[in-house]
């Protein structure tokens, strides 16, 4: 998960919803919310995880399709390690 990212996007138009629904057919997308691309609706906040090598491409596609996005996790591996509080591991 080194440099893997989690995006949060919010599609407004039906065209953007369809774009997101089709994203998994070309790329390896792990949906965090909703559970699957099938559930995506207009105005829904959608969180998904992509690997480092696909993150840049996904970002470009989001920009091209005018889909507002933010990056919730810049480097998932770092956050996985941060989740366990090593200070407490005696």
């Amino acid at each position: 998960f080194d440099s893997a990212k989690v995006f949060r996007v919010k599609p407004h138009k039906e065209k953007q919803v369809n774009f997101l629904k089709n994203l998994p057919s070309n790329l390896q997308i792990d949906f965090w919310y909703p559970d699957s691309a099938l559930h995506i609706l207009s105005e829904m906040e959608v969180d998904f995880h992509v690997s480092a090598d696909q993150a840049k491409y996904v970002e470009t596609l989001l920009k091209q399709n005018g889909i507002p996005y933010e990056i919730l996790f810049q480097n998932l591996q770092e956050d996985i390690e941060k989740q366990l509080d090593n200070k407490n591991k005696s």
Partner: protein
Amino acid sequence: TSKYHYTKYNEWHQISAWTARIAKKYPKLVSRIKIGNTFENRSMYLLKIGKQRNPKKAIFMDCGIHAREWISPAFCQWFVKEATRTYGKDGNMTNILDNMNFYVVPLFNIDGYVWSWTQNRFWRKNRSNASSSTCIGVDLNRNFDAAWGTIDASKNPCEEIYCGSSPESEPETKAVTTFIRSHLSSIKAYLTIHSYSQMLLFPYGYTYDKTPNYKELKELAREAAKAIASLYGKKYTYGTSAATIYPSSGCSDDWAYDQGIKYSFTFELRDKGKHGFLLPESEIKATCQEIMLAVKFLANYILRK
């Protein structure tokens, strides 16, 4: 048990050993029941908590149906800790456990959880490879016999929401449903603990239709959310699954409701995306404390009914 860490995420071998120890330490309050085996042949345990007296009402609660939602099994462990340590000291908990049993499945999707610790932190499904596809796993929360495979569940084994080859095709689902069916006369409420998104959901998910006791469930969810917010101000949204998130079929809360368990709730614990499935260990305590308030509220309501 005094050395057990409830404010850390524990691996399955630790949780499993803990279930044995806590039953041994509190023999009059806790008993460990084996309810089946997972696809990879690990033993599935349920903890029965409550003073031995029959007949009693019961609440069934399961945690960890989705492997990557680590805060969920952490809550079940916390609940058992609170129940055992406060019984006889806290009047309310004592009253609840004197008059009601809790059936707690501390970890539903054991194989998936082990996989999430060892191979893929974001694994969701179980580890069944029963399909003809090379893809592994069934979404256990699409595998229940509640409008199975009809609405927004996938029949593609490569999807995260693959519903399996048939209702209850998975040994984990079968173990839980068999237990619940054989204790239906006493089980008055069903609680299933998930993460994330801070929600309190109730049936239905497979239809926009409202249940006959919709108003009561909505009021209970409202009060439970209020109890949660009273501690740290965390806002949990509530409503039917279909209307609050999206329609989905084969889910455990719908199945439980249709079995006749009229108080059926899904908890989606913290947070709303900042941490997602990576809720830090430093938030385990606060998350569990706030959810305890809701669970105790619901237990008191069921007792009064």
